[in-house]
């Protein structure tokens, strides 16, 4: 997750810091290429940019298996992708995941952050707890939820005495996607809340005090004062969680449901994984990867528009 951590912030702020006046002209040396950056740049080009460029190229190749000689396919991979029901099922699942999961996550995270910055009793314990999901790896989280959601697991064990019938949450087509989203909410809300709280902490308490004296209630203070102030920052956190949901859900899906039952939990990023490493339909896989990449950029643009600073 940390690899993505900063995507959003750098995209949200234009990375054009104006140089301090007069510094550049002092010695000609500084105009030279920053040579010490070269090893990092080469490393980065080989291991990150190279594979992404290769992904784009492979998207236009016909390459039905590792041992087969690839040939040029033009746009036919994309034709196959768009004609494939599985792709549309995966696109639908990713859409549900983001359109439902993301707003729920951000609103709850904002309310939590708002509560924490009021410094109620126990807020220190709460801050400590909120960080925990950010520390736990995807496999560990998945294993805990695998135990909770299995037919004999904690959830059904709690529901049974209440007279409710549980189900095999991960194996039932109508609950499996919801279960995956729930796991993502579980791990995403706490970290988002902590980040938003760090921004809300900088709001001067006098302003809030004044509003309270004027008779503003919590609800109005939260949505009328804190939200507008933190709005662009919440946009940054939203982008971060958006990319994490869009790209990293493959891990959770792989660990918990392998995309099933049927295609009910196949998300786009899991489809990229599955087509590459299970079905070895490499051109198809990388074409979906490219589509995902474009969707990621589009989504960031939308989030930025919706949550643009309002002041």
């Amino acid at each position: 997750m940390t690899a993505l951590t900063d995507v959003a912030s750098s995209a949200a702020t234009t990375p054009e810091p104006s140089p301090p006046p007069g510094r550049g002209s002092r010695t000609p040396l500084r105009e030279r290429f920053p040579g010490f950056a070269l090893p990092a740049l080469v490393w980065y080009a080989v291991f990150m940019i190279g594979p992404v460029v290769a992904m784009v190229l492979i998207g236009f190749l016909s390459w039905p298996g590792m041992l087969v000689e690839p040939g040029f396919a033009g746009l036919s991979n994309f034709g196959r992708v768009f004609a494939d029901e599985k792709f549309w099922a995966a696109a639908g699942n990713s859409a549900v995941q983001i359109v439902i999961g993301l707003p729920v996550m951000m609103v709850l995270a904002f309310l939590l952050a708002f509560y924490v910055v009021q410094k109620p009793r126990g807020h220190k314990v709460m801050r400590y707890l909120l960080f925990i999901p950010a520390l736990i790896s995807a496999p560990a989280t998945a294993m805990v939820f695998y135990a909770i959601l299995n037919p004999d697991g904690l959830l059904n064990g709690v529901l049974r005495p209440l007279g409710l019938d549980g189900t095999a949450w991960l194996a039932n087509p109508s609950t499996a996607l919801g279960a995956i989203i729930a796991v993502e909410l579980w791990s995403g809300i706490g970290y988002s809340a902590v980040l938003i709280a760090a921004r809300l902490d900088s709001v001067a308490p006098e302003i809030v005090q004044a509003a309270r004296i004027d008779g503003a209630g919590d609800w109005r203070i939260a949505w009328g004062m804190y939200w507008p102030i933190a709005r662009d920052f919440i946009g940054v956190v939203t982008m971060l969680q958006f990319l994490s949901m869009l790209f990293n859900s493959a891990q959770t899906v792989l660990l918990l449901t392998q995309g099933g039952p049927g295609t009910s939990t196949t998300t786009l990023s899991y489809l990229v994984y599955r087509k590459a490493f299970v079905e070895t339909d490499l051109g198809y896989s990388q074409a979906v990867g490219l589509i995902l990449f474009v969707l990621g950029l589009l989504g960031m643009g939308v989030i930025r528009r919706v949550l643009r600073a309002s002041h």
Partner: protein
Amino acid sequence: MARTALRPLRDRVGSITSGALAWIYCALLVVPLYYFVVSSFKDNEQIFESPLALPGTWDFSNFGTAIDQAELVLAVANSVITTVAALVLTLLLALPASFALARSNGRLGRFVENIFALGFLIPSFAALFPTFLLAAALGLFHSRTFVVFLLPATALPLSIVILTSFMRAIPRELEEAASMDGASALQVLRQVYLPICVPGIATVLLLNFLSFWNAYLYPLILIGPDTAQRTIQVALPTLKVDAGTDYGVLMAGTLFTLLPVYLVYTVLQRQMQRALISGAVKG
């Protein structure tokens, strides 16, 4: 929450709901953790019968089984080697780069900086398959070595952004004084910049420690199932079996996986929280 007794009912209801919401979420955080910790001392029958009860006896045999079955000690050793080597390599690459970028304010420097900033947009995961081809082409497939090479590349953008912003804050007079004494650029980096950047380096180390230790898909695909090489995150899910998982053993293994991170978090709680926050806010 209630600061004055005179507030209207609607507000009191409002603050009660937001408080209730917050504590419900905290309960939802704690209960699964409690459940999995107590489960690691039970057998399947006890887990299914009374999921939330404390174990009758504190029986550590599940831990032994998990460690034997998935060769977790070896896996932890592999994770430690991979993580430490990748952390060192990241700093070796990022420190000089940040130093150069912080000192340069020409167009080229800004261009290089933007290239790294673009990295935040690269969905490295989508390019997993070409990365796998690269490993094969370098003859490093199915080895830890390639992951040690790869992980620093994934961490460079964030590390460089954080370190550069630290180094920019260093007054140039300090450096000019050192240069006047005839110090080379490398000496300036070592003797002037590094000591001042210790907090930034700590932040970068903590953030990267978390992401390297917790990495899953890269090690899974690139190192593969070989028990002599695989990391703890890859070893853990092998305890889940399609037919008849022993949940006690699985939870014991999970607990074992989390201990190192949890130890670091407990000891360095404040620094870790600051690192995680600045990791998202910088840039």
